[in-house]
């Protein structure tokens, strides 16, 4: 122990570069955002504000676009995340149970992970194009998915499929590595006792995988709440919906981003928006950890 204490300055020097960078680019902005959110009518150019208060929050809560963003984000989170996790789990279990071509399929399912999100969005844009898109051609339909006049449901379906596809790869890999670390003897023991497949999955695989499932659930929910790039990669830079309704699928992060660039609008509102998002994520993560304590078997 004493030796470590003597070398304390060495540790400090080693940590310093990272700590300085974190302080400048992470800690200070977080504190600053917190401060700005409660400064009424703050203007960065003049550096003036009109006292401390919650005026920014009141603006936001009165803004219908914020509620649209919140609704869109929540729909995406609570539909796409469960679908991705369940689908990922089944694909991983399937992959784990085949012997031939396992690595081939593993590569195929991992491809979206190494593919650029924007490129993936362009592909989706092309696939769901109204006139020469692959999907409409396949089913011989003429549906406007993401183009002019696209309905909310249609656009949301495309965004959902994109989000699920984009997030699937990482989840499959995590679940697969989790599955491969489960001792085969549990399955042999279950086999000797004539346990049907469904029960093996429910009573053995899922509980033994529960730490991975909790980890994936928490990180996916956080990721989904921060959705932004998925929307613009489908609809194009600065657009959150088809040309006819560019705010149709705006998300909370999109809302905050828009606030930053809108002329004349105080920066404080963007800070307040991000703070609200932070509070939502924090609350949901705490609930999950609480549930995890009871349901997860380490």
């Amino acid at each position, binding site marked *: 122990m004493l030796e470590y204490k003597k070398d304390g300055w060495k540790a400090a020097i080693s940590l310093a570069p990272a700590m300085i960078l974190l302080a400048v680019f992470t800690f200070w902005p977080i504190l600053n955002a917190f401060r700005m959110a409660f400064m009424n009518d703050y203007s960065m150019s003049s550096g003036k504000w009109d006292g401390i208060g919650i005026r920014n929050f009141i603006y936001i809560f009165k803004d219908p676009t914020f509620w649209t963003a919140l609704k869109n984000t929540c729909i995406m989170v609570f539909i796409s995340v469960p679908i991705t996790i369940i689908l990922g789990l089944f694909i991983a279990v399937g992959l784990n149970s085949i012997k031939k071509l396992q690595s081939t399929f593993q590569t195929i399912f991992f491809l979206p992970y190494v593919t650029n999100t924007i490129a993936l969005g362009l592909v989706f844009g092309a696939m769901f194009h109204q006139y020469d898109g692959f999907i409409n051609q396949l089913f011989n339909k003429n549906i406007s998915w993401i183009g002019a006049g696209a309905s909310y449901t249609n656009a949301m379906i495309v965004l959902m499929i994109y989000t699920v596809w984009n997030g699937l790869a990482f989840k499959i890999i995590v679940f697969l590595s989790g599955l491969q670390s489960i*001792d085969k*003897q*549990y399955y*042999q*023991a*279950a*086999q*000797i*006792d*004539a*346990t*049907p497949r469904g*029960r093996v999955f429910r*009573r*053995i695989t899922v*509980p*033994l995988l*529960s730490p991975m499932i909790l980890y994936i659930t928490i990180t996916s929910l956080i990721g989904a709440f921060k959705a932004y790039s998925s929307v613009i990669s489908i609809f194009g830079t600065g657009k959150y919906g088809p040309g006819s309704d560019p705010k149709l699928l705006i998300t909370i992060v999109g809302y905050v981003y828009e606030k930053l660039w809108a002329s004349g609008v105080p920066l404080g509102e963007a800070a307040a928006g991000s703070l609200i998002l932070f509070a939502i994520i924090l609350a949901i993560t705490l609930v999950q950890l609480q549930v995890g304590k009871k349901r997860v*078997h380490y």
Partner: protein
Amino acid sequence: MEENKNIQSTESAQKGIEVTLKNLTKEFTDKTGKITVAVNDFSVTIPAGKLIGLLGPSGCGKSTTLYMIAGLHKPTGGSIFFDDEDVTLLPPEKRGIGLVFQNYALYPHMTVKQNILFPLENLKIPRAEALARAQEMAELVHIGELMERKPSQLSGGQQQRVAIARALVKYPRVLLLDEPLSNLDARLRLQTREEIKRIQRETGITTVFVTHDQEEAMSISDAIVVMNEGIEQQMDHPQKVYDEPVNLFVAKFLGNPPINVIDGKIQDKKLVLSDGTLIDDNIDFANQEVSIGIRPEFFEINEKGKIEATVELVEHIGRDNMIISRIKNYDKSFRAIVPSGLGIVPGAKIKFSYSKIFVFNKETGRRLI
């Protein structure tokens, strides 16, 4: 009707069934196409209601044999019978066996009770009866008061008992144990092996266990099967195998400290050591090179003894002394156990006679005398 059936299954479990392995063979083919024969033409009959130890060095095919009886490994040749029923092609779940894995494979997220109940869930046994049976098994293995604990809260010995209870709760026809004592410490091992013997006696179930520890196999088995390189060497009552090994491998494998092996030959009906010392002059075998085996406890220090040796080391092992000494012109030293208090010191020249020797053909290892 329902009750009747259960009573019957209990009774048949108590009688136990006979397990017959006929020409059982298992070959593993690796990626390069190289074939390894793990079990080679293995035939034994395991009598009903007995406790049998499969014994051999690691890699001898004993665990593979156990897993073939369980049905988890498919034999590449030969067949397995439970009484008269050919189970060779039956999957493990249809064989009615209970298997205790080397590391127990208790489901870590379930309590002891849930672990023991698990096999019964699949049999659709009414809850009340399942609970009663689980409790009965828990009492049998003396873990009745641990039912609500998780496996991680149990000691190795207790986990072992839970695993046995889980294997027995569905009244299997055969109980299989893979290296049941290898994960326990020395004291617990002694205690647990007596427990296994007791549980087997009380249930009367035909039990096969695998071990590389000869002492463990000899102490509790009704019979042991010694295996080497996938081939059965000898099957008999443990003491019989120890006293009358069929070949050099079995003689060397059983006994601690191990048997002493000295080179010699048979010439003109005389058994002589390589240096010419005459051991016996009335041997009815043809001339051949032999290995002479003498167990440490068969030596006697005797002025008229024919084996002359120089003492190198004396170890005090309690009641007896172990003498490590060397016969002149031989590289290897040998061990003899003699009563303590004879005042033997290193460097002393002594003469040994012996109460019993084994003579093996040097090439085949087959026992001659």
